C-alpha cells in the first residue's frame, strides 16, 4: 500500500555542514551549483548515520536547489553511496584481480566467519557491515580493505582481527571524513 510521508522533513544539515556546503558551491561557476552534488551527498551520508535516506536526499535537494529526482538518480549511480542503513563500520574489501591473487577471498571468508554475516549483510548489533568492492587502487599492498577513509593493507587474518576488535572497542561510526580535515574538503 502506498505510504504517504509527511511533508515536513525532519532531516536537516547542521550549521557546520551548511558552511562547508557554501564553500563547496563557490568552487563552481555561477549557476553551476549542481556540480556540488556529489561532494554534498558525501557530507550528507557522513552526517546522517552513514546512509542516504529519501529524507536525507530531499535535504540535499533543498540546500542545492535541485529537484529531488536529480539527487536520487545520482545517489543511485555511485557505489559509495549507501541507499540502505549500514553498520557503524562498513568494511569494504577489495575483490578484484591483484587482491584476489593475494588472498582476498580468504579474507572475506574470514570476516564472514568472525562476524557471522555474509557479504552484503550487517551484524545484529549494527556494528559491522561487510561489502566486497571493486579495485580500490591498493594492488601493490594486497589484500586490502577500507573502513571509513582508512586503507588497511597487506592484510592477514591476525591483522583483520586486531582492526575489527579495535573498531568494536572504539564503538564509533566510521566515515569517509575520518582523518580528513574538514577545512581541507
Amino acid at each position, binding site marked *: 500500500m502506498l505510504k504517504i510521508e509527511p511533508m515536513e522533513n525532519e532531516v536537516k544539515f547542521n550549521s557546520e555542514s551548511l558552511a562547508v556546503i557554501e564553500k563547496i558551491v563557490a568552487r563552481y561557476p555561477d549557476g553551476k551549483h549542481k556540480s556540488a552534488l556529489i561532494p554534498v551527498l558525501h557530507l550528507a551520508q557522513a552526517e546522517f548515520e552513514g546512509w542516504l535516506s529519501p529524507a536525507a536526499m530531499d535535504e540535499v535537494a533543498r540546500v542545492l536547489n535541485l529537484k529531488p529526482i536529480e539527487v536520487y538518480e545520482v545517489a543511485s549511480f555511485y557505489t559509495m553511496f549507501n541507499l540502505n542503513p549500514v553498520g557503524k563500520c562498513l568494511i569494504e574489501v577489495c575483490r578484484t584481480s591483484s587482491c584476489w591473487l593475494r588472498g582476498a577471498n580468504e579474507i572475506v571468508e574470514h570476516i564472514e566467519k568472525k562476524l557471522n554475516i555474509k557479504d552484503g549483510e550487517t551484524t545484529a548489533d549494527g556494528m559491522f557491515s561487510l561489502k566486497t568492492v571493486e*579495485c580500490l587502487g591498493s594492488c*601493490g599492498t*594486497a589484500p586490502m580493505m577500507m573502513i571509513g*577513509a582508512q586503507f588497511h593493507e597487506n592484510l592477514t587474518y591476525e591483522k583483520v582481527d586486531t582492526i575489527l576488535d579495535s573498531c568494536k572497542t572504539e564503538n564509533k561510526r566510521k566515515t569517509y571524513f575520518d582523518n580528513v580535515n574538514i577545512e581541507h574538503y
Partner: protein
Amino acid sequence: MGKKLLLAYDHVPGIKGFEVYRANGGYKSVEKAVKTMSPDAVVEEVKKSGLRGRGGAGFPTGMKWSFLAKPEGVARYLVCNADESEPGTFKDRYLMSRIPHILVEGMITSGFALGATAGYIYIRGEYFYIVSILEKAIEEAYANGFLGKNILGSGFNYDLYVHVGAGAYICGEETALLESLEGKRGNPRIKPPFPAIAGLYGCPTVVNNVETIAAVVPIINDGGEAYAAVGIGKSAGTKLISASGHINKPGVYEIEMGITVEDFIYSDEYCGGIKNGKKLKAVVAGGSSVPILPADKILTTPSGEKRLMSYESLADGGFASGTMLGSGGFIVMDETASVVENLHTFARFYHHESCGQCSPCREGTGWMEKILHKILDGHGTMEDIELLWEIQSKIEGNTICPLGDAAAWPVASAIRHFRSEFEEYVKNSNNLKKVRHYDSVNQLVSA
C-alpha cells in the same frame, strides 16, 4: 638506476610540504612558463617532448592540447583525471599522496599553456584521504602566489579545485568524468563534439591524467627535447608502473621506457622476481583492460627479440600475440594462478562498472560474468566457451565509450592464449570448489 623525472625527490623527507618541495626545485616550471614563455611556446615544448597520455590511451598530449578551441570570451578548463580505477593501477595514488605539489605545479603550468580560467582535479571517492592532502598543497600554493589572481605578477589568473567522486570506474572515461563533475550520473557522452570543443559546462576543456600533468613539470624545466631523449622512439620519457601480484616487490616504479620486460620482472631494482621462486605463468601488462599474455609472449616479441616496456614493443604482434602498455598496471601471475578465475574477477568488475547506456555492454558484461561463474561452478560446457567468445566479439566496437572494448579484450585474450584451461574446467569439476557465490549469479545457476 634508470632516470627519475617524477619520483626523483620521492625519498626526500618532507617533500609533501611546500617548503621542502620548493627547496628541491619545485614550482620552477611555473616561474619559467609565466615569466619567460608564451602559452603557445609551452604547448610547443610539450609537443616536442613526445609525451603521450599516461591514463591508458597513449594519445600525444601536445596534439590534444592543440585541438583546444579558443573562442573569445568563453571560459576554458583544464581537468585532471585522478579517477584512477583500472584494476592493477595505483601509481596516481602513490604520486598524489607522496608528492602532491608536482600535480599542483603541473596543473598551473599546463593551465597557463591552455589559457584556462580554472582547473579541477577529479579524484575518485575511494581516495578520500588524498583530498585533504591535495587541498593543503593547493592552499600552500595560493599562499605563495602560485595560484589565484595575477600569478607571480604575470597577469595570469587561475584557480584550482579538488572535486571528489563517489565510486565509478566509468568516470575515468573523460566525458563521463565531465558529466560527473557537472553533478550527474557518469554516462559517457557521444563524441563529437569532443571536450576540446565542448567539454565542462559546454566550454572547451582538456582532460589529462595525473601522471601526464606531472610530466609537464620536467618537460618545461628541462625542455621538450631533453624529455624526448629519455625513453625509446615514440615511447618518450619515463612511465610509472604499478607492479602487483605474485612478485617479490610489489610497488610503483618509475622506469625509463625501453627496459626489457624480463629485467622489469626479475631484476632487484624492480619487481625482484616471482614470489616463492615459482615460475611465471602470465602477465596483464597495462591494467585489467589489456590482453593477458602467457610468459613466453610477454617476454619475447613474435620475431624472438626481448620485449621492451614501451608502447610499441608491448603492442608488437597486435592482439594475436601482443598487448598494450595501457595505464601501466602490471599484474603478474605465477604458475599456480588460474587464468579463468582471474578473468572472472575482471568480468565481474566490468559488469559492476558498466554505466548501462549501451545494450552490448550492459547485457554483454553481465552474461560474460554469469557464464564464467557457471564454468567455475562446474556447470560449464564447451559451447559456453564459444558463447563467451561470441559475446565479447559483439561488444567490441559497438559501444559509445571504450569500456565495452575494455571488457571484451581480457575475455578474448584469455580464451586465445589459455583455451585449454577453460576446457579443463569444463572437463574436470574437481577444480571447481573455489568460486564464491553471489546472489545475482546463484539465481542464474538455480534457474
